[in-house]
C-alpha cells in the first residue's frame, strides 16, 4: 500500500497590510511614482496570494504563467522561468514555466548541472542569487557566466524554492535581457514571498497529483485484486472501507461500519483471533494477518483474509490501522476439499493395504508413507534425498530389475502413462516377497515440466502363493482327469460338451476344438437327437444317476454310459457328468463265458449220455459175456464123444437167466434215463427255441440247415423245466438236421410251428429229410438208431422228458416229404406249480 501523506498545506498570509488605497486588479494604472509602483506590486502580491490559496491543481500552471506575465510586465522584466529538478533527473533542471516578454533566444528545456554549477550550488544551499551584472559574478561562476552570456541574460535574480522548510526543489528566475537592472532587497523579499506562493501552489499541485496517481494505482490494484481496502480510525473505532471492501463484507455503500458492527459480522468462534491480531498490531506494531469467517446477512459464510498495519502518530500513539481484506472462501473450500480428498486417498490407500510413495527426480527428494516402508522394509533412517529409492531398487530381485528399470524409463519418456508390474523383492526381514507395483507420472505442475512420479505397492506374496497352489491343484486335477481311462465328458443342460478328458479325445480321434461345443449325441451316436434310453435325458429329469449299455458302431466297441447331475449352489441341475466305459472286453468275456457255459451244458448233456452209455455198456456186457462164453462152452461140449448133454442143459439154463438179466438192465435203464428232478416254471416256448438255436447256430450253418421259426411270440407260456425242455428241443432239431443230411442245401429246411388247443400248446418240428420208418413207435425204443455213431437213446430220453411234463410226444410223416415230430405241453397256470 502506498504511503499516503495527507499533510495540510499552510497558506502564508501576506505580511503587508495594504491601506485603503489598495486597488485590487488595477494593473493598468500607469506608474507615476515609486509608491504607485510599490502599491501595484503589493496589490499583485495580495491578488496572487488569495488566488493561489484555493487554486485547484489543474489551474496552477495556467495561473503561474499568468502571474509570470503580470510580474514581468510590472517589473519590466524580460524572462521569467521556473526551474525544478525532478527526482528522476537529479543532475539537471527542468524548465517548467517560462514567460518571455518578447522574442528572443529561449533557454533550452533542460539545463545540466555543468551549465550553472555555481548557481546551482548557491540555490541548493538555499541562497538567493542576485546578479546585477554578469561581470560581478565571482570567478568560480565563470561557467555560469558563460552560459548566461549565451542566453543573453544581463541581470538575474534566482530564488530557491522549497516547501515546508525542506531542501530546495527548484528555482524561480527572473531575468533581463535588454539591460541590467538592480535588485533592491525589499523587492527581493517581496519576490521571495511570491516565489513561496508559487512554490506552495506547485507543491500542492504535485502532491495532489501524486496523491491522485497513488490513489489511482491503489484503486487499480485493489480493483483488480478484488481486495477491499479499509482504514480503522483508532480513536473513533470506525472503519472506512472501499467499495470492494464493503461488497466483500456485505455492507451497503453508506453504512457506518463501527467496531461493533464489524464484530457482529465475524463468526463468534473466530472473533478472538481477529481481536488478538488487531490488539497486537495496535499495541506492539505487528502486522495484522488473520483469517476468519464472516456471516453475511443472507446467512452465507465467507472466509476472509485481512492484512494490515498500524500507523502511529509521531507521539507513538496508534492513529490508524490500514489494511486489505479479501474473500478467500473459494481458496478455503478448495483447501478443505483438498484435505478431504487427501484424507480419502489416505484412507483408500490404507484400506487397500497399499504403501504410497512419491519421487521428485529433479528435486532429488522422495516421500514414503509408513506402509511403504513396512512393505519394502526401508529402515527409518533412510530418508535423505533419493536414498529410499536406491534402497528399494537394490532389493528388487536381480532378475526382475532390468525390466522394471526399462518400464520406468518408458514412463519417464512418456511412452507409457503408467506402470503396472509384479516382481520379486528381497525384503530385509521377511525374505522373498512378491510385490505388485503401480506408478504414474505426476501431471505437470505450475513449476513446469519435471520428472515426478508417484505410486503404490502391495505385498501379494500370499495371493501369489494361493494362485500357485490353485494352479498346481488345477494341474493335478487335470492330470487326474486325464489319467482316468474311462471317457469323461462334462455337459451343460443342453447336452453340449463343455470339457473332456484325454481318454475321450483319444476315443473320438478328433481335435479338442471339434469336440467341445458339440452336442453329445451327435458325436457319440451320430444322431441329432437323444437316443432311446439316453441316460443324460433321464438324469436331467430325475436328478439321479442313469446307465445305458450301447454298442458304438463307429469304433465297434461296447460301452456302458453312466450320467450324474451337476448342480449349482441353488440346487438346480445345470449339467451332467457323462462317463463312458469300454466294456467290449468284459462283454466278450461274458459272452465267452456264456458260450462256455452253454457248451458245458451241452457237453454235460452229451457226457451224460456217454456216461450213461459207459455204465450201460458195462451193465449189459456182463450178461452178454456170460451168454457168449456159456454158448461157446456148450458148442465145445457138444463136439465131444459122447456129448455131455446134462452139462449143456445146465449151460442153457444159465444162458436164459443171463438174458433175463439183460432185460432187467434195460428196464432199469429207462428209469435211469428219467430226467430226475425237474422244476416247472412258466416259460415262453419261443425263448427255449431261441436259446437252443443260438447254441447250435454255428453247427446248423455248417450243415447249411435253415430254421424257419414260425412261432408266435404272443403264445401263452407253458409250464416246464428249462433245461429239460432245451434238451428235448435240441434233440428234435438235431434229429431233423441229421435226417436232411443227404438233401441238397436248398432243401434243408426245418419248420417250427405251434398251435394252441384249449389249455395245451402243440409244437411241431418238421423236416424235409428221409422220413420215418413204417413202425413209427420203434423210434422211441432204446437203441433204435439209423446213425452209425448213434446210441439210439435220443428219442427215448425225449419221451421220458415229455412224460415228466404231463405232455405227449409223437411223430407223423410229412405230406410234402420228411417227418413231423410233435409235442404237446400244458400251458402254465397263473399260480406256479413246483
Amino acid at each position: 500500500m502506498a504511503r499516503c501523506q495527507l499533510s495540510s498545506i499552510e497558506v502564508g498570509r501576506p505580511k503587508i497590510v495594504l491601506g485603503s488605497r489598495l486597488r485590487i486588479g488595477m494593473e493598468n494604472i500607469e506608474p507615476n511614482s515609486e509608491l504607485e509602483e510599490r502599491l501595484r506590486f503589493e496589490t499583485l502580491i495580495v491578488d496572487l496570494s488569495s488566488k493561489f490559496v484555493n487554486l485547484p491543481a489543474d489551474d496552477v500552471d495556467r495561473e503561474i504563467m499568468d502571474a509570470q506575465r503580470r510580474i514581468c510586465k510590472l517589473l519590466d522584466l524580460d524572462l521569467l522561468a521556473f526551474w525544478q529538478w525532478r527526482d528522476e533527473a537529479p543532475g539537471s533542471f527542468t524548465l517548467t514555466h517560462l514567460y518571455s516578454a518578447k522574442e528572443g533566444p529561449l533557454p533550452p528545456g533542460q539545463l545540466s548541472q555543468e551549465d550553472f554549477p555555481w548557481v546551482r550550488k548557491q540555490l541548493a544551499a538555499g541562497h538567493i542569487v542576485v546578479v546585477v551584472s554578469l561581470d560581478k559574478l565571482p570567478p568560480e561562476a565563470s561557467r555560469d557566466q558563460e552560459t548566461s552570456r549565451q542566453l543573453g541574460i544581463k541581470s538575474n535574480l534566482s530564488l530557491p524554492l522549497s516547501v515546508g522548510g525542506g531542501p530546495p526543489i527548484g528555482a524561480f528566475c527572473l531575468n533581463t535581457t535588454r539591460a541590467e537592472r538592480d535588485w533592491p532587497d525589499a523587492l527581493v523579499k517581496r519576490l521571495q514571498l511570491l516565489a513561496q506562493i508559487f512554490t506552495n501552489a506547485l507543491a500542492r499541485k504535485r502532491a495532489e497529483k501524486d496523491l491522485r496517481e497513488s490513489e489511482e494505482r491503489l484503486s487499480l490494484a485493489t480493483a483488480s485484486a478484488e481486495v477491499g481496502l479499509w482504514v480503522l480510525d483508532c480513536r473513533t473505532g470506525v472503519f472506512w472501507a472501499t467499495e470492494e471492501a464493503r461488497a466483500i463484507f456485505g455492507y451497503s455503500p453508506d453504512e457506518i461500519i463501527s467496531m461493533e458492527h464489524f464484530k457482529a459480522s465475524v463468526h463468534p468462534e473466530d472473533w478472538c483471533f481477529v481481536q488478538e491480531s488487531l490488539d497486537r498490531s495496535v499495541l506492539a506494531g505487528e502486522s495484522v494477518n488473520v483469517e476468519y469467517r464472516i456471516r453475511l446477512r443472507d446467512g452465507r459464510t465467507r472466509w476472509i483474509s485481512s492484512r494490515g498495519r498500524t500507523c502511529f502518530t509521531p507521539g507513538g500513539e496508534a492513529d490508524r490501522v490500514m489494511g486489505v481484506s479479501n474473500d478467500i472462501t473459494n481458496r478455503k473450500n478448495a483447501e478443505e476439499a483438498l484435505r478431504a480428498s487427501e484424507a480419502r486417498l489416505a484412507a483408500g490407500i490404507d484400506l487397500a493395504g497399499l504403501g504410497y510413495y512419491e519421487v521428485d527426480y529433479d528435486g532429488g527428494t522422495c516421500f514414503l508413507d509408513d506402509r511403504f516402508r513396512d512393505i519394502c522394509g526401508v529402515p527409518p533412517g533412510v530418508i535423505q534425498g533419493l536414498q529410499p529409492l536406491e534402497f528399494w531398487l537394490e532389493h528388487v530381485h536381480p532378475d526382475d530389475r532390468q525390466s522394471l528399470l526399462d518400464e520406468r524409463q518408458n514412463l519417464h519418456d512418456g511412452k507409457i502413462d503408467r506402470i503396472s508390474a509384479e516382481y520379486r523383492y528381497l525384503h530385509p526381514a521377511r525374505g522373498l516377497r512378491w510385490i505388485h507395483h503401480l506408478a504414474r507420472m505426476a501431471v505437470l505442475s505450475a513449476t513446469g515440466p519435471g520428472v515426478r512420479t508417484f505410486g503404490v505397492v502391495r505385498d501379494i506374496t500370499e495371493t501369489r502363493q494361493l494362485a500357485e497352489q490353485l494352479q498346481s491343484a488345477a494341474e493335478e486335477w487335470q492330470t487326474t482327469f486325464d489319467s482316468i481311462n474311462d471317457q469323461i465328458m462334462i455337459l451343460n443342460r443342453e447336452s453340449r460338451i463343455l470339457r473332456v478328458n484325454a481318454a475321450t479325445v483319444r476315443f473320438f480321434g478328433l481335435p479338442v476344438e471339434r469336440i467341445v461345443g458339440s452336442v453329445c449325441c451327435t458325436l457319440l451316436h451320430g444322431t441329432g437327437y437323444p437316443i432311446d434310453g439316453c441316460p443324460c435325458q433321464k438324469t436331467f429329469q430325475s436328478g439321479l444317476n442313469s446307465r445305458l449299455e450301447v454298442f458304438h458302431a463307429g469304433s465297434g466297441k461296447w460301452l456302458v454310459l453312466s450320467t450324474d447331475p451337476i448342480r449349482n449352489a441353488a440346487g438346480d441341475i445345470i449339467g451332467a457328468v457323462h462317463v463312458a466305459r469300454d466294456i467290449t472286453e468284459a462283454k466278450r468275456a461274458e459272452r465267452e463265458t456264456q458260450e462256455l457255459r452253454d457248451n458245458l451244458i451241452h457237453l454235460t448233456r452229451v457226457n451224460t449220455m456217454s456216461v450213461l452209455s459207459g455204465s450201460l455198456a458195462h451193465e449189459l456186457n456182463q450178461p452178454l459175456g456170460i451168454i457168449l462164453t456159456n454158448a461157446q462152452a456148450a458148442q465145445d461140449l457138444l463136439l465131444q464123444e459122447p456129448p455131455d448133454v446134462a452139462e449143456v442143459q445146465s449151460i442153457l439154463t444159465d444162458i436164459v437167466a443171463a438174458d433175463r438179466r439183460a432185460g432187467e438192465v434195460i428196464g432199469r435203464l429207462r428209469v435211469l434215463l428219467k430226467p430226475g428232478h425237474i422244476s416247472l416254471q412258466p416259460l415262453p416256448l419261443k425263448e427255449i427255441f431261441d436259446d437252443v438255436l443260438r447254441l447250435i447256430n454255428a453247427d446248423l450253418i455248417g450243415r447249411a440247415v435253415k430254421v424257419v421259426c414260425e412261432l408266435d411270440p404272443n403264445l401263452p407260456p407253458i409250464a416246464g423245466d428249462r433245461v429239460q425242455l432245451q434238451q428235448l428241443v435240441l434233440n428234435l432239431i438235431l434229429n431233423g438236421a441229421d435226417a436232411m443230411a443227404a438233401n441238397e442245401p436248398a432243401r434243408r429246411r426245418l419248420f417250427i410251428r405251434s398251435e394252441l388247443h384249449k389249455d395245451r400248446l402243440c409244437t411241431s418240428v418238421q423236416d424235409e429229410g428221409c422220413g420215418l420208418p413204417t413202425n413209427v413207435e420203434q423210434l422211441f425204443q432204446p437203441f433204435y438208431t439209423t446213425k452209425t455213431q448213434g446210441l439210439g437213446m435220443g428219442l427215448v430220453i425225449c419221451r421220458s422228458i415229455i412224460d415228466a411234463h404231463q405232455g405227449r410226444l409223437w411223430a407223423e410223416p410229412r405230406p410234402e416229404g420228411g417227418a413231423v415230430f410233435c409235442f404237446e405241453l400244458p400251458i402254465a397256470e397263473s399260480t406256479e406249480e413246483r
Partner: protein
Amino acid sequence: MSTSGGIVYILDDEPEMVKALMRLLRARRFEARGFTSVRTFLEAYRPENSACLVLDVAMPELEGLELQRHLTHQGILLPIIFVTGHGDIPMSVRAIKAGATDFLTKPVDAAALVQAVRTALQVAEIQRREAAEIAALKARLASLTLRQLEVLKHVVAGQLNKQIAFDLGTGEQNVKLHRAQVMKKMGVDSLADLVRVAERLGIGK
C-alpha cells in the same frame, strides 16, 4: 487131466461168469479153478504149480490191481491175463505196465482166451523151471564157506590167484585149494560156467 501141465485160476466177482469160463476151459481140457474174491483165491493158491490167472479188471478196482502188486511183491511169478470191459483202457494200460501178460476184451472170445491161457501156462512153466534152477544154484551157493564165497567173488572178478592171495592175505596155494572146492560145490567145470552161474545169481555186479 491137464493138457499142458498147469492150473488156470479164474477170478471174477460175477459167479455166473466164473462158472461159464470154467466150463469153457474145462471143455478144452484145461484144469480150471474159479474164485469170486481175492481172499479165497490167495488161500487156495499154491506157487509150486505152474499156473496162470484170468483176472477181470472190472472187479472193484483196487482189489484187482492190488492183487497184482501183492503178487509181485511176494515175488510170485504168476502170469495174469486181464479181461477188460468197455472203457477200462486207462486201467488196462496201468495193468500192462505193471506186468500183465495179456489182456482180452469183453465179451470174451473163446479161441482168444484159450490161446492166451496156453501161452501163459507155457510162460509159467518156463518160469517155474527157471525158478527151480535158481533155487538149486542158491542151495549150492549156500553150501560154500565164507572163505570160499570170497574166493568165488574174486575169481569171477577176473583176478589171478596171486592177486587173490594178496588181497585175502593168504597163500596162493590156499587160494587154489578153495577155488577147486568152489568149482565142485557149484557143480561147474570151467571158469566160464562159474561166471555164468555167478551172473545168474547176481554175484559180482
